[in-house]
């Protein structure tokens, strides 16, 4: 009984990603069509070459028909799946396994979400009938539980904690400002971030990820076939997923300064990829910065910073675009936007650009071009502190 991983067995040979944002003029069908065809073009293939599809969406459609109808697929298999905010990554993971198993030669993983049609602020979703006792606090509130717990545990006063969170938002906005696909493409002054209207706990509106519409897609083949389609494919080094027992809100030993699911999924991914020191071995990471305290805690859970020191590293610029380990160089959920089903694939899209040296010069990370690092990590989270699902992938530009 063991997890073996599929290191270097599957490669990405093409990707597409729409701009994320408030697409009042574009439907789910439009975005799926754009992302899929951009990915075909990127891989130099046609729709007929794809043998099977995995579609991730949390609430913008049900069943494979959500994809097969707009793309007019020719009776191909489409799996529609959902795993909360990690939905896009889950589509990618399952598509990769289908290739690794030998069942298909070429598959597509595609994610989409249309959030802005609801008319509501933040995320909404249908729940099954309940006894009415489930928590009804919003997503920012659940993640804001991290902030006082972290500050209390490590002795940060509230003002310092707010400065740390503000800097994380400032960094991600700064990265997004350089990215034409991002929802928010402006730098935001720290004073503006810190002074924005409060949403939950110490979190202001600028501590929250962008609610947006978007789609992203990847074409996958067996690693040995990759060079038929692409001179510089990305190889999958690790895929891991952890679905927690959701005991954070029951178990007094959980202290709201970590995601146990992230630690478990990161440990598994590093084992699969043969990574022993993520901080020095990884060129970049796209992490699930749904809210600023999440990114802070993730730096420690993913092993990028020592416990209790993530805030100092964040303040020192370790995770900036030109830092030791750039985190969310594309702007992250914060400024690139977070259309749920698309986000995991959007993270991989940034690895696709950066690790292959194809990001525009003004935002190409030096860890790849100057230090020659080849590995990228994506981390996608669903749920809330204490009750989460977590995905980690490691991808690389070289075999072995």
């Amino acid at each position, binding site marked *: 009984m063991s997890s073996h991983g599929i290191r270097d067995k599957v490669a990405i040979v093409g990707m597409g990603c729409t701009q994320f944002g408030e697409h009042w003029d574009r439907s789910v069908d439009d975005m799926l069509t754009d992302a899929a065809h951009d990915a075909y073009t990127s891989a130099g293939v046609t729709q007929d070459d794809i043998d099977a599809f995995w579609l991730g969406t949390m609430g913008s459609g049900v069943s494979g028909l959500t994809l097969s109808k707009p793309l007019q697929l020719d009776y191909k298999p489409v799996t529609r799946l959902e795993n909360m905010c990690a939905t896009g990554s889950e589509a990618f993971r399952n598509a990769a396994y289908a290739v690794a198993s030998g069942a298909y030669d070429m598959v597509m993983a595609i994610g989409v979400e249309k959030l802005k049609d609801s008319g509501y602020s933040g995320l909404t979703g249908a729940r099954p009938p309940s*006894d009415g006792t489930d928590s009804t606090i919003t997503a920012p*509130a659940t993640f804001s539980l991290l902030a006082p717990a972290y500050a209390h545990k490590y002795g940060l006063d509230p003002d310092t904690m707010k400065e740390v969170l503000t800097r994380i938002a400032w960094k991600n906005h700064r990265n997004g400002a350089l990215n034409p696909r991002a929802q928010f493409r402006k730098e935001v002054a720290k004073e503006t971030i810190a002074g924005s209207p409060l949403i939950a706990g110490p979190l202001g509106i600028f501590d929250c990820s962008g609610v947006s519409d978007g789609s992203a897609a990847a074409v996958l083949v067996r690693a040995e076939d990759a060079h038929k389609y692409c001179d510089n494919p990305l190889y999958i080094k690790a895929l891991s997923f952890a679905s927690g027992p959701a005991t954070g809100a029951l178990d007094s030993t959980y202290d709201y300064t970590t995601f146990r699911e992230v630690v478990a999924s990161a440990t598994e991914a590093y084992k699969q990829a043969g990574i022993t020191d993520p901080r020095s071995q990884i060129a970049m990471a796209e992490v699930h910065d749904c809210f600023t305290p999440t990114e802070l805690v993730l730096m420690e859970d993913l092993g990028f910073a020592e416990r209790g020191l993530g805030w100092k590293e964040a303040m020192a610029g370790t995770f900036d675009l030109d830092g030791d380990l750039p985190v969310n160089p594309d702007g992250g959920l914060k400024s690139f936007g977070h259309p749920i089903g698309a986000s995991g694939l959007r993270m991989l899209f940034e690895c696709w650009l950066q690790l292959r040296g194809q990001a525009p010069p003004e935002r190409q990370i030096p860890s790849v071009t100057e230090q020659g690092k080849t590995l990228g990590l994506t981390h996608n989270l669903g749920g809330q502190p204490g009750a989460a699902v977590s995905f980690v992938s490691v991808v690389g530009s070289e075999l072995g």
Partner: protein
Amino acid sequence: MGRGIIAYGAYVPYWRLDRSKITAAMGAGGGRGHRAVASYDEDTTTMGVEAARNALRGSDIVPDSVLFSTANPAYMDKTNASAIHAALDLPQSSWAVDAGGAPRSSEAIWALAAANRGANLAVASDLRTGRPTSGDEAGGGDGAAAFVFGDDAVSPVLCEWLGGAVATAEFTDRYRQPGDAYSRIWEERFGEQVYLPLANDAIERALADAGVGLDGIDKIAIVGLHARAVRGLSRVAGDKLVGDLTGEIGNTGTAHAAIVLAAVLDDAAPGETILLVHLADGATADVLRTTDAIADHAPYAPVRAQIDRGNDALDYNKFLTWRGFLDREPPRRPDPERPGAPPAFRSEDWKYAFVGSRDRSSGAIHLPPMRVSMEGGAVDDMERVRMADVPATIATFTVDRLAFSLSPPMVAVVIDYDGGGRFQAEMTDVDPDEVRIGDRVEMTFRRLYSAEGIHNYFWKARPAAG
């Protein structure tokens, strides 16, 4: 075998409205003093639960019935007492029944509780409304009180009933059509002149029935929504008159006689004789006497302590919003969903009684109850554990300004119970700026919201009284 009151408790909600705020806002109405205000998440049922918990705390009395009376029922055509019964975790064999309508209905549950065999819990509760600037708005109050009548064999009788009498008449003093948000009142001099002779008649016959002369009465309590008639009658009581609390908490209607009696008993010495007069569509007079057992009785939540703990920071506009007289813009969030009847039925122990499960092997407490243990994974080896009365400490918290709430922002806390167990709860009766890690809290039964005609009852945390 002696029979009488073997337990009692009152509930006065946390919030107070300073009546001068009405005058300041409206240029009319209001007055001096305060009225008690049920929070946005309270109704007569939840206040009744809190009063009953205060009555039963520390005792092992298991009431054979829950008799509930209110002029402001949360439901019509559905029994409210059954929710109180469930929240108290009482056995299926206990009766639960409402006596609704006018404040006079409270007399029915007292009489039934006293007369029926066994230990009977009578809960009177009211939430008094009034149109802005009206006398009812300023003079009303919200609260509840619960009395358990039973035999000495169950628990020592604290107070016996010596005798009583009623005087009945049909007249139009105050009235409200079903569904109306407030009552209407006839010209008050009329009511006064109808009530006074009725009261004098009832008092005279009650004293005779009890075999006690007026000089044998130690304390006189006169209670009724007709303030002018109460004042008129009070003049004859002299220095035996006990304060009716209306200046501090307002007149709580159906609950008021019970709250005033609870306040009297809180401070009573053994052998005190009490005349309780209730003016409500007629007059009822009862003569009671405390027993020696009251000397050893330490009330869990004395009325005076609850009054003194009140917070009068409540703004008038918030008061109007809570009572539905102001319709404020909701957040851009979906309306809350009604609880499903079958899921709520399946989880009655959890939702109403706050009963979790404890793993017999590891001792781990699960809130909500689980079948598979989070420690060790034992399956179906759980015992029920009621956590409603267990104090807790805040582990972390947030203030949610986006969530739907009838009174935003919503405060959420993760709390660790003394002796084990954790839960993420909403917090109530608290200033959002005052919440801190390490604060002590206790549980309170509340109405989270109502959706599509269904009230969603569940437990919240509130600052610990101690």
